[in-house]
């Protein structure tokens, strides 16, 4: 536990002693607000954050891999992995420590979008529960994207390669749930397979959660995804840490 905490603390500090955190936060906050106000936030004449949350899956496709790419690529490129894994820290403690640190960082980024609910509250009387569900869904989804990013970060020593692979991985997982993709897939795949693939998408589970319906199936989807990808990341590192 102490090993995991030490890694987590160092990693979280690492975001803020380099410009990574500030560049990330500024860009994330700018685009989340820009896309919301550019979308139908005022025109909808409803005091809710539907438009704001609707953009999250797409925004995360680019933003989360950017926060995740350095986690292991940098460690392997600089050789500091040899230091880390000869301290009394297991691979799993290190993997979890880094994952939790990055997740907390994304939580901070989400938390800093607080002017959005404040704006909605100023303009009308929004449903607090709905907004809370939206944030919970966004946070869980960020964790799932991050787990994908972690895995690809462990795959390559090159941060650019890690970033691109993670973006593609996340984009595939989102696009499976988009209606255009489904229509296309339906043209040559059997219906059962199309709906099975749809069930694998971030989009579908996120949509139902941000509408305020918190179902066990949706939460467990994100949890399984996180456990699976983080687990794969750990196995990958066990095998390739010295490669």
């Amino acid at each position, binding site marked *: 536990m*102490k*090993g995991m*905490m*030490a*890694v987590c*603390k*160092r990693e979280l*500090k*690492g975001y803020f*002693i*380099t410009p990574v955190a500030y560049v990330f936060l500024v860009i994330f906050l700018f685009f989340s607000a820009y896309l919301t106000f550019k979308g139908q936030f005022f025109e909808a004449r409803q005091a809710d954050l539907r438009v704001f949350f609707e953009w999250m899956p797409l925004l995360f496709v680019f933003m989360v891999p950017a926060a995740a790419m350095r986690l292991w690529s940098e460690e392997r490129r*600089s*050789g*500091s*992995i*040899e*230091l880390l*894994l*000869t*301290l*009394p*820290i*297991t691979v799993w403690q290190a993997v979890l420590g880094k994952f939790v640190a990055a997740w907390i960082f994304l939580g901070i980024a989400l938390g800093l979008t607080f002017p959005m609910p404040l704006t909605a509250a100023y303009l009308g009387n929004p449903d607090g529960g709905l907004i809370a569900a939206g944030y919970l869904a966004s946070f869980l989804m960020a964790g799932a994207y991050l787990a994908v990013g972690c895995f690809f970060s462990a795959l390559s020593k090159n941060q650019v390669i890690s970033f691109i692979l993670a973006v593609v991985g996340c984009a595939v997982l989102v696009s499976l749930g988009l209606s255009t993709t489904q229509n296309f897939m339906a043209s040559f795949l059997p219906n059962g397979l199309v709906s099975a693939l749809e069930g694998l998408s971030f989009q579908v589970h996120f949509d139902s959660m941000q509408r305020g319906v918190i179902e066990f199936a949706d939460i467990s989807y994100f949890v399984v995804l996180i456990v699976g990808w983080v687990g794969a990341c750990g196995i990958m590192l066990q095998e390739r*840490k*010295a490669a």
Partner: protein
Amino acid sequence: MIKVKDLRRSFGSIVAVDGISFELGKGEVLGFLGPNGAGKSTAMKMLACFLEPDSGTAEICGADILTDPMKVRQSIGYLAESAPAYGEMTVGAFLKFICDARGIKGRARMEAIDRVVKLCAIESVYHQSIETLSKGYHRRVGLAQALIHDPEVLILDEPTDGLDPNQKHDVRLLIQKMAKEKCIIISTHILEEVEAVCTRMIIIARGKILVDSTPKELKQKHQANLDEIFRKLTEHRKIA
């Protein structure tokens, strides 16, 4: 304190370490010598539990590197060849992280950091970020990291590489000072260093131990200086 039994590791078709065995007790300083690519670093990485051996094992302070790697890592201080560290951190923050990872807290942490900072003479760069340090200071920070928990066993991969002559001298003095209480393995290319600090030397080439002796014995046996002996043994090997 260290018992190595038939340790073997290959990368693809290249056999890096080919069945080395030796034992080392408290108060001994072992010089690990060999040409580049002889398998010194690979062997040290296995002892530090970073790489797993293909076969064979080793015991350090009573703990097996395969079955109890956590205990091994707690009892050793390891300085890797490139002295890896987190460049963006300051020296102070880095040493605090190492203490956290090793479970050294509160007053003990302060004392441990004070001790190694003085020992490795890095007071002047304490607040500087590691990526801005010169090679010598960088390596000394790596050494400080390896010494912070006052380990019983030290594994140092080329500890004096990149240091100026004065710093080399200081590190050698430091090793000599610690030698009585600890069990130390250092790898090096500098043969005068072996004569200065090591009580025992092992020459390896192509993953195999060629010589396991003391510098004095070896010189007596071959009636030559270490430099000539080293060349004779390893070059002969190459031609064969």
